C-alpha cells in the first residue's frame, strides 16, 4: 500500500549537513523550528527555503520509508514532530488511536483550493484532522509499440498474446482490488463471496503473468523486458522520462487512489507554524511547483492551470474524472485484512 520513493541519500546528507551547520551557527537568536516527518524527496527544497525566509523559522526534515515504521515510532511516544505525511489509511489508524490534532480551519485559508472531486472520495472529506497532500493512482502502463489495440480495462490482464511479459503488483490489496473493480465490486469489500470471485479471476490472470512485482516493473518496462505492467502512476511518470514508448492508462472500471495527507500530531510543539506550513503548501503556486518536482499530483484545483501543458495532458498525473468517480481509496480493514491474506495465499499457491 505504500508507494516507493526515489532514493535520496545525497539530499538527505545535504539536509543533515545544513541542519548541523544551522545548529552550530544559529544558536544566538532563538528561532522557531518546524520538525517535518515525511517521505524522502517529498517537498521541493526551494519551497522550504522560501517558507523559512517568510516566517523566520527553520524547517528540519526527518524521513521514513514505510507508514508502519513511522507509526511504530509515533506510537512508541516519539514527540517533537510538528507535521507528518502518512498515507490516508494510516491517517485513519492514527486518528482512531488519538494521535492527531484537529485542524483549525481559521488558520488554513488555502483549504478552499483543495480539489472537491478528490475530497468526495477521501477518507477525511471535511479535512477535520488531515489535508490531502499528494495523490497517486494505480493503473496499467504499457509499451505502445508492443501492445496493439490496448483497451483501458483490467481485462487487459486476460490477454494471452503478450507472451507473459506482463506483471501485476505483488501487493494483495492492489491486485485483488483490481479484480474486484473489474467485477464491479468495491476494492474494500469484506464479502467472502466477492473475494472468492476475485481470487478466481486473479488466478486466471496469473497464467499471463511473468511475475508479481513491486519494484522491478519500472526498469523492466523501460528496458522492454515487460510490455505491460500494473503500477503506480508516480513511478510511471518517472520512467516515462527514460522510454518515450511508455503509455499509462487508468482502467475504465475504476482503480485505487492513494493519497498522503498532511497531519499535525497531538505531541506537536509548533502548532501554529505547522498550520502555516500546511497553508503554504496549498498556495496554488507552491502546490504546482511541488507536483511538478515530485511527479505526483497535489489535489489543489487552483494549482492545475499553473502546471505545464505536457504535465496536465499526462493521464498518469490527471485521472479522468469519470474514472476517478469510480475509483476508491484503499481502507485499512483491521482484522478483516486476514481475509485478503488468505485469498492472496491461495492465489500464490495456485497453478
Amino acid at each position, binding site marked *: 500500500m505504500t508507494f516507493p520513493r526515489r532514493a535520496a541519500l545525497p539530499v538527505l546528507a545535504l539536509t543533515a549537513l545544513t541542519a548541523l551547520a544551522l545548529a552550530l551557527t544559529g544558536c544566538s537568536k532563538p528561532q522557531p523550528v518546524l520538525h517535518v516527518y515525511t517521505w524522502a524527496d517529498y517537498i521541493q527544497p526551494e519551497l522550504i527555503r522560501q517558507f523559512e525566509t517568510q516566517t523566520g523559522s527553520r524547517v528540519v526534515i526527518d524521513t521514513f520509508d514505510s507508514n508502519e515504521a513511522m507509526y511504530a515510532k509515533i506510537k512508541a511516544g516519539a514527540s517533537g514532530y510538528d507535521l507528518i505525511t502518512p498515507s490516508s489509511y494510516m491517517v485513519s489508524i492514527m486518528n482512531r488511536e488519538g494521535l492527531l490534532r484537529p485542524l483549525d480551519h481559521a488558520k488554513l485559508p488555502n483549504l478552499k483550493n483543495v480539489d472537491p472531486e478528490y475530497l468526495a472520495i477521501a477518507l477525511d472529506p471535511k479535512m477535520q484532522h488531515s489535508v490531502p497532500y499528494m495523490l497517486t493512482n494505480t493503473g496499467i502502463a504499457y509499451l505502445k509499440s508492443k501492445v496493439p489495440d490496448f483497451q483501458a480495462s483490467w481485462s487487459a490482464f486476460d490477454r494471452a498474446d503478450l507472451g507473459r511479459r506482463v506483471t501485476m503488483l505483488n501487493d494483495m490489496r492492489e491486485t485483488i482490488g483490481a479484480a474486484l473493480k473489474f467485477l464491479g465490486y468495491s476494492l474494500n469489500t469484506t464479502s467472502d463471496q466477492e473475494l472468492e470471485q476475485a481470487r478466481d479471476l486473479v488466478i486466471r490472470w496469473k497464467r499471463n*503473468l511473468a511475475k*508479481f512485482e513491486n519494484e522491478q516493473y519500472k526498469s523492466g518496462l523501460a528496458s522492454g523486458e515487460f510490455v505491460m505492467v500494473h503500477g503506480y502512476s508516480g513511478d510511471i511518470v518517472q520512467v516515462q522520462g527514460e522510454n518515450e514508448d511508455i503509455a499509462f492508462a487508468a482502467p475504465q472500471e475504476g482503480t485505487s487512489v492513494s493519497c498522503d495527507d498532511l497531519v499535525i500530531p497531538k505531541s506537536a510543539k509548533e502548532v501554529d507554524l505547522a498550520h502555516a506550513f500546511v497553508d503554504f503548501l496549498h498556495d496554488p503556486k507552491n502546490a504546482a511547483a511541488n507536483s511538478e518536482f515530485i511527479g505526483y499530483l497535489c489535489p489543489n484545483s487552483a494549482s492545475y492551470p499553473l502546471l505545464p501543458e505536457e504535465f496536465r495532458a499526462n493521464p498518469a498525473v490527471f485521472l479522468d474524472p469519470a474514472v476517478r468517480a469510480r475509483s476508491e481509496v484503499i481502507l485499512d480493514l483491521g482484522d478483516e485484512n486476514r481475509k485478503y*491474506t488468505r485469498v492472496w*495465499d491461495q492465489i*500464490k499457491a495456485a497453478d
Partner: protein
Amino acid sequence: MAARAPRPGPAVPEGRRSRGAEWSVTLPSFLWLVALFVVPSVIVFAIAFKPATPYGGIGEGWTLETIRTLGNPNYPAIVWRTIWLSVVTTVACLLFAVPMGYFMARAPKRRQNTLLLMVIIPFWTSFLVRIFAWKMLLHPEGLLKRALVALGLAGPDTQLLYNPWAVLLVLVYTELPFAILPIYAAAEKFDFRLIEAARDLGASPFRAFRSVFLPGIRRGIVTAMLVTFIPALGAYVVPDIVGGPSSEMIGNKIAQRTFVDRNLPEASALSALLALAVLLPTFGVLVLNRGRDLLAPKSENSP
C-alpha cells in the same frame, strides 16, 4: 579477552593445557554464537507462540493459534517446491563440484592457485549484482534468447526467466563455489597414489574413483552438501528476483508475512519450522559422522 593468561605454545601436550586458557580461546566464538545465533533463535521460537495484533505488533499472553496456522492448506505446495529445488540444487552442485575438485587437485600447483582464484573471483562482485546479471543474460530480447530462437531451440514467446527452472539455474550458480571449495580442500589432501594402487589391483577407473576417491573425500562431500542444501532451503532473494508467479519458496512466504501481512508471529512460526528443518539434518549428519569416525580404522586417510 584474558590477555594476561599465559598462552600455551603448540608444543604443550593436549592434556596439560590449562582450563583457563582453553576458555579464553573458546569464549569469543562462544559469546558470538550465543549473542548472534542462540538468543535470536530463542526469540524467534518464542514469538511463534505469541498472538499477533492487526497493526503489526506482538500481542500479550501466549497462544497455540499461530502454530495451528502452519496447517495452512497452501503451505504443502511451497514446502514441496522448496525441498525439491534445494535437493536438485545440491545434487547438481555436487555433480559439477566433484569432477571440478578432482581436476583442480590433480592440476600442477601453480595452475591450482589460478583455478582457485577463478572460483573465488565472483565473490568480489555483490551477490545481488550477479543475480541481476542473470536477468540481463536471460532477458527476452537478450543475446542468449535470440541465439536460442535462431537455432530453433526456443520460440519467440518462450520465457527463460520467471519460472522454477530459472530459480534452479541461478541457485546452482550461486551455490556452486561453496560446493567446490570444501571438495577441493578434501581432494587436495587426498593421496592419489591410492587410486594408482587400486588400479594396480585391477579396479576399473570408475571403480577406483567410486570406491577409493569418493570415500577419501567424504568429509568434503558432506560439508559441500550442507553448505549448498541449507542456504538453498532458506533462499529468498533468488526466487524473488528470477522466480515467477508460481516459484515461491518458504523464504518468500516468511518475507510476505513480515513485510506485507505484518504478522511477526506467523513469520516466526515459519522461520522456526525452517530452522528445525535445517538443524535436525545437520545434527544427524554430525552425529553420524562422529560415530563413523570412531569406528573407522586409524589408517584411513584423514587430516
